[in-house]
């Protein structure tokens, strides 16, 4: 178990120290190409760091769990998939790494085997499968015209195939939590054991963004329809994620909705880039910074939520919370200003409003955590890991700013006013509390689920009629619950 927790270290070293390289393995899969490039290094670096911290955290978190062997096995498998993903430069191995990550993570979601976990796992799996199928269809289409299965060739083929681009956007959108494809997210992230939640929300959902960056013809072709749709969905996610998150009463669910909201900002960046290829060179690093910033901050938040409540914990949590809200001097402020710079004025304004909303959501989180009972003493490994995550969040502005050489140093005020506005609204709400409507986690799913379940049962009954016929109609063919 001990050595297992160190598995992300080689990846971290690779990201930190290895030069860019390309390695062709024609016998592997359908002709594999592995390699390290700029985007890959960025994703690999923060993911490996997060996995390393989470793995050690997990070793402490699950020290008394009888099924920890199974958990750690699947945890490592998920991590391997996630960390290999940035290194893959051809479609088959990318798809493989993506699938390994996705399906192994199911085991993390259902680990506790509680009723909620099983339901979340089921929905996670269904959505993930749908996503995989969308991706597969897109890849099939692109491979028709592409000369090879290399990512670069497929992306070039995608310029002429808007339908495939839409499939790609939706397929990876399941992972990034685009509205209506997000339903699994607020269910699955909270039920998993805390270290798993951290990587799910911090690293794994970013894999979808990597998919977009790799396969969509960003900066090479103008796809206004798709681009603006994505932008619209991103904005909706940014605001609705906060709105629904505020209505949640579980801390981890709040965090999950915050992820939906934050990923919405990334969708906005990618969407605008699709519609206006000329803006992409400026947007690309901004999206990268937002990815890393949110990954580290959300990771730190989840890891902190898993620790026993207390003053120090709350104080520690305030740092990544502020970062997420985009407070000055944090990585959040850097990311937001980078994202805002190339965008049209009105979009920039909306991002600022979203930042204010995030502030509100973070306050809600801290408010919920305040009342938590004291649990048993934390394991040292957990605390140390969390401390590591906090250091990473604090240091993020320093090591992220070289990515944005052209960005003027952010005006403190432009970062501060949304936060202050958020605080003001919070104070007002505290003074004049408004009734919070109860929205179940998974929001629209609550309406869809009964109908879909009934449909599924009807299908099962339907297809078992030959068996009932053979059994003389006495077996009543009780349907199983859906997968």
């Amino acid at each position, binding site marked *: 178990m001990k050595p297992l927790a160190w598995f992300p270290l080689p990846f971290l070293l690779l990201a930190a120290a290895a030069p860019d390289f390309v390695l062709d393995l024609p016998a592997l899969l359908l002709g594999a190409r592995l390699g390290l490039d700029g985007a890959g290094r960025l994703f690999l670096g923060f993911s490996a760091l997060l996995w390393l911290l989470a793995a050690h955290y997990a070793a402490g978190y699950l020290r008394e769990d009888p099924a920890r062997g199974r958990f750690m096995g699947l945890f490592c498998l998920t991590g391997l998939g996630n960390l290999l993903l940035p290194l893959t430069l051809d479609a*088959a191995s990318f798809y493989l790494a993506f699938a390994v990550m996705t*399906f192994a993570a199911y085991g993390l979601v259902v680990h506790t085997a509680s009723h909620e976990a099983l339901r979340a796992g089921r929905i996670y799996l269904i959505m993930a499968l749908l996503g995989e199928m969308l991706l597969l269809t897109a890849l099939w289409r692109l491979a028709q015209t592409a000369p090879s299965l290399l990512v670069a060739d497929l992306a070039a083929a995608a310029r002429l195939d808007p339908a495939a681009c839409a499939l790609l956007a939706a397929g990876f959108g399941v992972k990034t939590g685009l509205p209506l494809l997000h339903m699994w997210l607020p269910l699955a992230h909270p039920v998993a054991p805390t270290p798993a939640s951290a990587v799910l929300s911090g690293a794994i959902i970013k894999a979808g963004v990597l998919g977009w960056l790799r396969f969509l013809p960003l900066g090479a072709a103008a796809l206004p329809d798709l681009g603006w749709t994505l932008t619209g969905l991103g904005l909706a996610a940014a605001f609705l994620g906060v709105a629904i998150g505020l209505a949640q009463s579980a801390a981890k669910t709040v965090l999950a909705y915050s992820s939906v909201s934050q990923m919405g900002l990334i969708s906005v960046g990618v969407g605008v880039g699709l519609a206006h290829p000329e803006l992409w060179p400026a947007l690309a690093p901004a999206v990268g910074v937002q990815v890393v910033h949110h990954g580290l901050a959300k990771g730190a938040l989840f890891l902190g939520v898993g620790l026993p409540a207390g003053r120090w914990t709350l104080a520690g949590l305030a740092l990544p919370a502020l970062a997420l809200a985009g407070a000055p001097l944090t990585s959040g402020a850097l990311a937001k200003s980078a994202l805002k710079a190339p965008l049209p004025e009105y979009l920039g304004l909306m991002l600022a409003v979203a930042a204010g909303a995030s502030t509100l959501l973070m306050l809600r989180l801290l408010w919920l955590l305040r009342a938590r009972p004291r649990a048993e003493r934390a394991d040292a490994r957990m605390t140390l890991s969390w401390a590591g995550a906090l250091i990473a969040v604090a240091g993020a502005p320093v090591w992220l700013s070289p990515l944005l050489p052209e960005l003027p140093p952010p005006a403190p005020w432009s970062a501060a006013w949304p936060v202050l506005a958020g605080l003001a609204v919070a104070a007002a709400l505290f003074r004049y509390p408004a009734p919070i409507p109860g929205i179940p986690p998974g929001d629209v799913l609550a309406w869809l689920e009964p109908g879909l379940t009934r449909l599924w049962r009807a299908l099962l009954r339907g297809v078992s009629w030959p068996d009932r016929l053979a059994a003389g109609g006495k077996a009543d063919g009780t349907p199983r619950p859906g997968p």
Partner: protein
Amino acid sequence: MTANEALPLGVLASSLIPGLIIFALPEARVGLRTALNLFGAFAKLVLVGVLLAGVAAGEDYGFRHSVLPGLDLVFKADALALLFGALSTLLWLFTTLYAIGYLEGSPHRSRFFGFFSLCVTATMGIAMAGNLFTFFVFYELLTLATFPLVVHRGTPQAMRGGMVYLAYTLGGGAVLLTGIVWLHGLTGSADFAHGGYLAVLGGEHAMQLQMIFLLLIAGVGVKAAIVPLHGWLPQAMVAPAPVSALLHAVAVVKAGAFGVVRVVYEVYGVEFAQSLDLLTPLALAAAVTIVWGSLRALAQEDLKKRLAFSTVSQVSYIILGVALFGPLGTVGGLVHLVHQGVMKITLFFCAGNYAETLGIHKIGELDGAGRRMPLTTVAFTVAALGMMGAPATAGFISKWHLGLGALEAGMDWAVWVLIASSLLNAAYFLPILHRVWFTPRARAWPAERIPARGRLETGWLLLLPTLATAAMILVAGLLAGADWGPLAWAKRITVWEYR
């Protein structure tokens, strides 16, 4: 007789002769019987290896014997024959090992292994048949050789299953015979040829040729379990596990699918078949089978039955690939011929392991089996993921090429069929995987027969073949790009068929 003529006969003899000797052996001669079985299996493996190397180097292997004027028994070990032949040989070896372990101490083993060897002989005959007549001879021999295996247990239930099996397969054989004789009347004696041999008849006989196609496909379609000719397959589940494995993976259904391949590519020729408008109906039939098989699998509570319906669905992937007009579809269909075999045999080995070790037959009894039998369950997981077409498994390679082929042929609807089938496969396999790994065991095993000894969760003869075939699934999926292996071989055949 030259060496090139003798080799194909040697391949047949390597299982026929041990089989005949085994029939005559008394029940108690376990050692000699096992030795004969393994000798035959290894000898065949070596012979097929020689053939493979030879064919890759451009050699021709064949043998011809006249039974009537103008009617020849022809054996031809070409690349297509060896694709199927090598699969059968390899899996026969594993199934033999498995069967030795599975039937340890049970009665009538001489009879069982005798027919088992005959069954493989028939399969190899089907693989190497050089014309429709020879194909038919071995196709019927296969029916006869498998019947005693299906009814091996001798219970009334087994008999019922056996009778249903016979009714379907003999009926199919009769239809096939009609088609073959009719065609023989039109063309005279003709061997399978790359690109088919009917194109010379031209459009003049179009109507007749369409009718004959229907007869031929209906005939082989029974064994290939094309809906609505699939009714025998779930019934034949009464057979012992190694038999089910063989039936589903190598022998019977594969013989049917292989027949479709031969008929479309080497009798009609894929281009001529397309010009007669035969491929689209075939693809539709395959599509219906794929979806219906998957849906029916969903409804099954018995593990082997679920696997059986899964076979119905999966075998039609091969037929779909054949019916997609274009090289990529062909590659997908041909490679799935091998891949489905390896994956399905693993699943049946696992089902046999659960049944034999713990007495588990129903899916509901599998709760927590992963903890008790981790190795078997890992193998099951790999194979089930393969069936869903998850990457890194052999199934993905098949599905990938089939999807490409569907788009290439302009049959976009076939992509939806593949997608739907993948989702349905997930819907009936993933709950099982969830059960074995994540649901804790709630009650005692139905009938624990083989106690765990240390790391060995069941008999090693049951475990070894299971793990070996599971490893093959991964190797075929991970090293698909290698210059050897099923994918490379299927591509080589495809080049010939479209030349």
